[in-house]
C-alpha cells in the first residue's frame, strides 16, 4: 500500500471499510476518494445499504406471482387486490437505534417504514410490529425496553393516524443484549398512482421535501469531523434521531396530493445514509446523473460540514424529481401543507453524482460505484458442533399436573394476552378495521367494494434456533395459517432477516438454512416474496440472537362480512381438528418452561397436506360453514383450545386423538375449528362447545374464568 493510502487507512477502517474494499474504490475511481466521498461510499458499502452478505442468498427467494405489481428492489413491494387497487407493504428493522433509545428508536422505525410505503404512492393504512426482548421477569432492562418501544410505536402510529392492527412479541434470553424492533406497514393505492424511485429526464429538478437537515444519526462517519470534538462541541456529536409524527403526517398528505395531481416524476424516501442513498438510488434506477447543490439544503444547525449534510439521517424527509414546469405548482401544494420544499439539484445526462458547493464539486462519483460496485460476499456456512444457546431457567420440573402446566403456559410472557400492549395502539382509525387484535388470527381491513385484505406477521426464533430450515418454513406456514383462519388467500410476502454475525460460520449456516426454508415454503404455498429487509450482526459477547426471520403475509378475502373469528361462538357447536397435526416437544414453550435448551429437530412438514388444510379452513370460513377457526401454535392444542374458550367466554369438552400431547407444537399445520355439527361432518370432530369450563378428557378441566385470569395476568405487570 502506498504511503498516502496507509495514512488514509485509519479513516476508512474506522468507517468500516476493509483494505480490500478501499483498494477496489481507489481502483474504480483511479484516485483516492476525498473525505466527503469516503463518507458517502462507506455508508453505501455498509452491510445495511449494500446487503454484502445477504444479496446472493436472497436470490433464492421466489419473487414471481400473478398478483405482484412491484417486487424486491423498490422501496416497498406491491400486490394487486382487484378493482384497480394495489396494496404496498414492507417490513423493516430498527433494532440498533431501539437498543440505544427504545422510545425514539421504535418511533422512528415506524416513521421510516411509513415513508417507504408512501414513497411508492400508497397511503399507509396499517402498521404491525414484531418485537423481541430478553426475559421480562428476570431483567429490568428488558421491561424498560419493552414498555418504551411499545410507547414509541404507539406514539408515532397513533399520532399520524395509521392504525396499528397487529404484531407479535417474544421474550428470550438471547435477545437480552440485542432487542429486535421490526415494523411492517401496508399502504393502499389506486394502481395508477404507484410510482417508482427512478429519476428521469435530464434537466428535471430534484426537490427535497420536509424536515430541516441536522446532525441526526451521523454515527460512525463523525470520525471525519475536520476538527477533533472537544468539550462544548456537544452539537457536533452525532445525535439520536427524534421522531416527529406531526411533520410526517403533513409530509404524507402533501406527497399523496402531489401524486394525485400528477406533479412528480419520481419519489424516494430518505432513510439509511440519508441524501447519499436517496440520490444515488434514484440516479441508478433511472440511469441518469444528478447534481446536488449543498448550499441550498436547509439546515437545522449552523456549521454543518458537507459530509454531515450528505449522510445525515434526519427524519421526515423525502426527495422527488419534478419537471421544471411543475415546480411552481409543487411549491403551492407544499406551502398549503406547511411542508418545506427546496429545489436542491437537477437530473443530468451521464452517470455521475456530483455534490457542489459554490460551484465547486466537493464530491464527484460515478453512480455505479455507490450502488453497484460494492463486493458481495459468499457465506461460509458450517453447522455448529455444540449447542449455541444455553438452556433457560426452568420454572416447571415435569411433575406438574396438566392443569398447572396449562395455567403456567397461559401466564408465561410468550403466550399471555398482549392486551397491555395493543391497548396502547389505535387499531381503528381510517375506519377499515374489521378484525382487531384478539378477535382473529389475522387483522382484517375492508376494501372499498366489499372485499377485504388480511395481514399477519410471525416468526418464532426459538424454533429456528432448533432447526433453521424447518423453523423458517414454519414461520411462513404459521403466517399463512393465520390468514386462512379469517378466510384469506395469501397474495405476497415480506420478511425481515434478523441474525447474528454472518462472518461466523454457524450464523452463516443459520442464515443459509433459514433462507432455504423460507424459499421452499414460499414455493410450496405459491406465495411470492415482494420485499423485505436484513438486519445482521445482532450479536453480543455472550453470542448471537436466536436466528429470527420475521414473515409478513398479505392476503385477500372476497367478503369482509365473512371474515373469520377465533372465538367459540355457540353452545353445542362441534369442534374439529384440521390438518396434518403431528407435534413434538422440540422447541416448544413447555420445553422452555422446563428449562430445556433450544435444540432438537422440528417435526417434518407435509407441504401438500398442509396446503390442503389451509384451503379447507379458508373455504369453510368463506362459506360461513365454520363459526370459528384458530391455528394451533405456541403451547399446543391445549393453549389453542383455551384461547378459543376465553375469546368466546364459553367452555368446551374435547377428547384428543391418540398420541397427541396437549402441549406439543407444530406451527402452521393444525387448526381448531368449530361450527354446526353437520358443517363439520367431513372433519375430525374432537368435541363440543359448551359449559363454562374447558375439559380435555383424561387431561384437565379448568373454568374459563380461571384460564382468562391467568392469560390476562401474564404481561399486565411487565409493560
Amino acid at each position: 500500500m502506498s504511503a498516502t493510502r496507509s495514512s488514509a487507512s485509519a479513516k476508512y477502517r474506522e468507517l468500516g471499510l476493509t483494505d480490500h474494499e478501499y483498494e477496489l474504490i481507489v481502483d474504480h475511481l483511479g484516485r483516492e476518494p476525498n473525505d466527503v466521498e469516503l463518507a458517502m461510499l462507506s455508508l453505501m458499502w455498509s452491510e445495511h445499504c449494500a446487503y454484502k452478505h445477504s444479496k446472493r442468498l436472497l436470490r433464492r427467494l421466489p419473487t414471481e406471482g400473478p398478483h405482484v405489481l412491484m417486487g424486491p428492489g423498490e422501496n416497498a413491494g406491491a400486490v394487486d387486490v382487484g378493482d384497480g387497487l394495489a396494496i404496498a407493504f414492507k417490513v423493516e428493522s430498527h433494532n440498533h437505534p431501539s437498543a440505544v433509545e427504545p422510545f425514539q428508536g421504535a418511533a422512528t422505525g415506524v416513521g421510516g417504514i411509513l415513508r417507504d410505503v408512501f414513497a411508492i404512492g400508497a397511503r399507509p393504512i396499517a402498521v404491525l410490529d414484531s418485537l423481541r426482548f430478553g426475559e421480562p421477569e428476570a431483567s429490568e432492562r428488558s421491561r424498560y425496553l419493552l414498555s418504551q418501544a411499545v410507547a414509541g410505536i404507539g406514539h408515532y402510529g397513533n399520532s399520524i393516524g395509521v392504525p396499528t392492527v397487529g404484531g407479535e412479541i417474544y421474550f428470550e434470553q438471547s435477545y437480552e443484549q440485542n432487542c429486535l424492533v421490526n415494523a411492517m406497514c401496508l399502504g393502499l393505492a389506486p394502481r395508477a398512482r404507484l410510482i417508482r424511485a427512478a429519476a428521469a429526464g435530464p434537466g428535471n429538478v430534484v426537490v427535497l421535501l420536509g424536515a430541516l437537515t441536522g446532525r441526526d444519526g451521523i454515527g460512525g462517519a463523525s470520525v471525519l469531523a475536520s476538527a477533533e470534538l472537544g468539550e462544548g462541541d456537544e452539537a457536533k456529536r452525532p445525535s439520536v434521531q427524534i421522531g416527529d409524527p406531526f411533520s410526517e403526517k403533513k409530509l404524507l398528505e402533501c406527497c399523496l396530493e402531489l401524486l394525485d395531481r400528477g406533479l412528480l416524476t419520481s419519489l424516494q424516501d430518505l432513510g439509511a445514509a440519508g441524501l447519499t442513498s436517496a440520490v444515488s438510488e434514484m440516479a441508478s434506477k433511472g440511469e441518469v446523473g444528478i447534481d446536488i447543490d449543498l448550499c441550498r439544503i436547509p439546515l437545522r444547525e449552523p456549521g454543518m460540514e458537507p459530509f454531515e449534510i450528505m449522510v445525515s439521517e434526519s427524519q421526515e424527509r423525502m426527495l422527488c424529481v419534478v419537471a421544471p414546469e411543475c415546480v411552481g405548482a409543487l411549491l403551492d401544494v407544499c406551502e398549503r401543507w406547511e411542508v418545506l420544499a427546496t429545489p436542491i439539484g437537477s437530473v443530468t445526462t451521464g452517470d455521475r453524482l456530483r455534490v457542489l458547493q459554490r460551484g465547486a464539486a466537493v464530491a464527484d462519483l460515478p453512480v455505479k460505484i455507490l450502488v453497484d460496485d460494492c463486493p458481495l460476499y459468499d457465506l461460509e456456512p458450517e453447522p455448529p458442533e455444540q449447542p449455541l444457546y444455553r438452556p433457560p431457567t426452568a420454572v416447571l420440573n415435569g411433575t406438574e399436573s396438566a392443569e398447572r402446566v396449562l395455567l403456567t403456559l397461559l401466564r408465561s410472557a410468550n403466550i399471555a394476552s398482549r392486551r397491555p400492549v395493543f391497548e396502547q395502539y389505535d387499531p381503528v382509525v381510517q375506519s377499515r378495521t374489521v378484525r382487531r387484535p384478539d378477535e382473529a388470527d389475522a387483522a382484517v381491513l375492508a376494501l372499498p367494494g366489499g372485499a377485504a385484505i388480511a395481514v399477519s406477521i410471525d416468526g418464532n426464533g426459538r424454533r429456528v434456533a432448533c432447526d433453521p430450515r424447518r423453523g423458517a418454513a414454519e414461520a411462513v406456514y404459521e403466517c399463512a395459517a393465520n390468514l386462512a383462519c379469517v378466510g384469506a388467500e395469501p397474495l405476497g410476502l415480506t420478511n425481515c432477516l434478523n441474525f447474528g454475525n454472518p462472518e461466523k460460520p454457524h450464523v452463516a449456516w443459520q442464515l443459509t438454512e433459514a433462507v432455504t426454508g423460507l424459499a421452499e415454503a414460499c414455493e410450496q404455498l405459491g406465495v411470492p416474496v415482494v420485499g423485505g429487509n436484513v438486519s445482521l450482526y445482532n450479536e453480543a459477547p455472550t453470542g448471537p440472537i436466536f436466528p429470527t426471520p420475521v414473515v409478513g403475509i398479505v392476503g385477500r378475502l372476497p367478503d369482509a362480512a365473512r371474515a373469520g373469528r377465533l372465538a367459540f361462538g355457540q353452545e353445542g357447536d362441534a369442534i374439529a381438528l384440521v390438518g396434518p397435526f403431528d407435534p413434538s416437544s422440540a422447541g416448544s414453550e413447555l420445553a422452555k418452561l422446563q428449562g430445556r435448551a433450544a435444540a432438537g429437530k422440528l417435526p417434518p412438514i407435509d407441504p401438500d397436506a398442509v396446503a390442503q388444510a389451509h384451503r379447507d379452513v379458508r373455504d369453510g370460513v368463506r362459506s360461513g360453514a365454520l363459526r370459528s377457526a384458530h391455528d394451533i401454535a405456541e403451547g399446543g392444542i391445549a393453549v389453542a383450545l383455551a384461547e378459543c374458550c376465553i375469546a368466546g367466554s364459553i367452555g368446551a369438552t374435547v377428547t384428543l386423538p391418540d398420541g397427541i400431547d396437549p402441549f406439543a407444537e407444530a406451527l402452521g399445520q393444525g387448526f381448531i375449528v368449530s361450527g354446526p355439527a353437520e358443517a363439520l361432518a367431513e372433519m375430525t370432530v374432537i368435541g363440543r362447545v359448551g359449559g363454562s369450563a374447558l375439559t380435555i378428557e383424561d387431561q384437565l378441566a379448568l373454568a374459563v374464568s380461571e384460564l382468562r385470569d391467568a392469560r390476562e395476568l401474564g404481561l399486565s405487570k411487565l409493560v
Partner: protein
Amino acid sequence: MKFGVIRFPGSCDEVDALQAAARVGEAVLLWHADRDLQDVDAVIVPGGFSYGDYLRAGAIARFAPVMDEVAEFAREGGLVLGICNGFQVLCEAHLLPGALLPNDSLKFVFRQVVLEVVNADTAFTGACQEGERLSIPVKHTTGRFYAPDDELDRLEASGQVVLRYAPGHNPNGSRRDIAGVRNKRGNVFGLMPHPEHAVDLLTGSTDGLKIFESMRAYVGDPVLG
C-alpha cells in the same frame, strides 16, 4: 342537513367523521386556514393530534383562523360537536367547560367502553334514552376530564353532563366518570369517545350513529332539545 368537519394539520379522524356524518346527511371538510364555514348546519371538530398535540392537546389548534368562525357560529346557536382532540380544542377555546388532562395511567389507551346517557334531552343525544348504554371506543392519551368541584356540581345540576363512563369503564380517571359535556346553551358538545368509530357493524358497533342522527333530528326540528 349539512355537516362541516374541520381539518387541522395533524387531524387523524376527520375523514372517519366525514364518512360517519355522511350516513345521515351531507358532509364537507373545512380547511383550518379558511374562514368560510360553507353554510353548514353543524360543525364537527374531529379527533387526532392537531399540531402534534404539542405544548398541550388542542392549545394551538384553537387559534386556527377557522376557529374564530366556529366561535361565532356557536354564539349564534349553531351545533358544534367536538370529538376527542376536538373536545380538547373546544375546552381550550372556552367553548366548553373544564379541561382534559393526561390519563391517570399516563399511557395512550384504546378500549371499547360502555357509556351511559345521562341526559337524553340534548341536541346530540335526542335519539337516545336516558340511562341507555352505548358501546363506543376511546383512544387518547389526554382524556381525564377535570373541572373544580363546584363547577362539576353546577354542570351536573344543569344537565350539562351528557355522557358518563359506565361503572368500571372509566379509562382515564375522569372526574365523576364524565365522558361528554355540553355548554350551558346546549349547542356545543364535546366527548372523548369516538362515535364516528361506532357507525357500522362491520367495524364495530353502530351506537355512535345515534349522536349524528340526534343532530340531524335536532336541526330538522329545532323545537326538540
